[in-house]
């Protein structure tokens, strides 16, 4: 039963990832669809990071005590000024763990 569950889950997840990568799938994306899809990365990635930063213990937390928020603001400033992904990530993470450590 567990084996079956694992195999079926794997099948569903693989299909959802592979479906539109298959060239024989008769699907021609219109220019409107492509335009819409061009927004997918900023939309999805923002929808993933925002709850991590703004919600603490299941509640909205907009205050200086929220280390996630402070470090995220610093990350945004670094990203705008330097445009360097790795630098932004490493420096804001270092700040985050310093804040946690010395709180």
């Amino acid at each position, binding site marked *: *039963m567990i084996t079956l569950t694992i195999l079926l*889950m*794997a099948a*569903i997840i693989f299909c959802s990832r592979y479906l539109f990568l298959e060239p024989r799938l008769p699907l021609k994306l219109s220019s409107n669809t492509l335009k819409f899809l061009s927004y997918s990365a900023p*939309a*999805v*990635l923002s929808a993933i990071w*925002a709850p991590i930063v703004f919600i603490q213990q299941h509640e909205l937390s907009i205050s200086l005590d929220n280390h996630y928020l402070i470090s995220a603001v610093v990350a945004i400033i670094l990203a705008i000024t330097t445009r360097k992904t790795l630098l932004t990530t490493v420096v*804001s993470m270092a700040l985050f763990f310093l804040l946690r450590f010395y709180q």
Partner: protein
Amino acid sequence: MSSQKSSEKPYSSHWKAWLAGALAVMPLSIAVIPWGILAGSLALDAGLSPFESQAMSAIVFAGAAQLVAVGMIKAGIGLTSILITTLLITSRHLLYSMAMRAQISPLPLKWRLSLGFLLTDELFAIIAKNKDQANQPLNPWYALGGGLSFYLTWNIASAAGILIGHNIPNLESWGLDFAIAATFIAIVTPQINRPSILICVLVSLVCSVVCELFQVPSGLLIASLLGMACGTLYAKATGEGK
């Protein structure tokens, strides 16, 4: 013309492209370690054998879906419910697959299968980043480096969780999830070069927070689609980029 052609290739070898992908995904790999440990440990806890627990990470390879499914198995919930939940959680991958269609579908079968299997949130993120910075067609070796190193990290972390078993420390309190936020902010922020993208990001951001606060199922997908729709409509309405 030939010199121009060579300058189009950002990486001098497949291996360098592979390493660049692995490096790009590294903060996300670090962030996923606690979740991998948790996935392994919880699978064991739910009554899966060590082999089954590892197999789940190796062939399902989907963090959120695995954690939820393992919880459902433990609660004795039936197969159909587990599969429907899996479908809901994994539905965002349809979006990634569609967004990647132009770049990946012309590749040979072995590339399509391997990149398709490895197409997680994290791989999608670093491909989006690379596309933005270099404005190039996808380098499959870069994607493979990111995808495969992330896959290995996930599986090693799961194995560690299976070995540690029930004695795992309270990993959520470490705050490693900030690494995800930091990386995604670093990827998304430089991409905001038009008002419509800013609208898209702000709508997704607010909507995802609201969905999370009210525990809306598939909130991530709803927030993403709404943000994409608002960005597209804004660009259409203002004739942006024409």
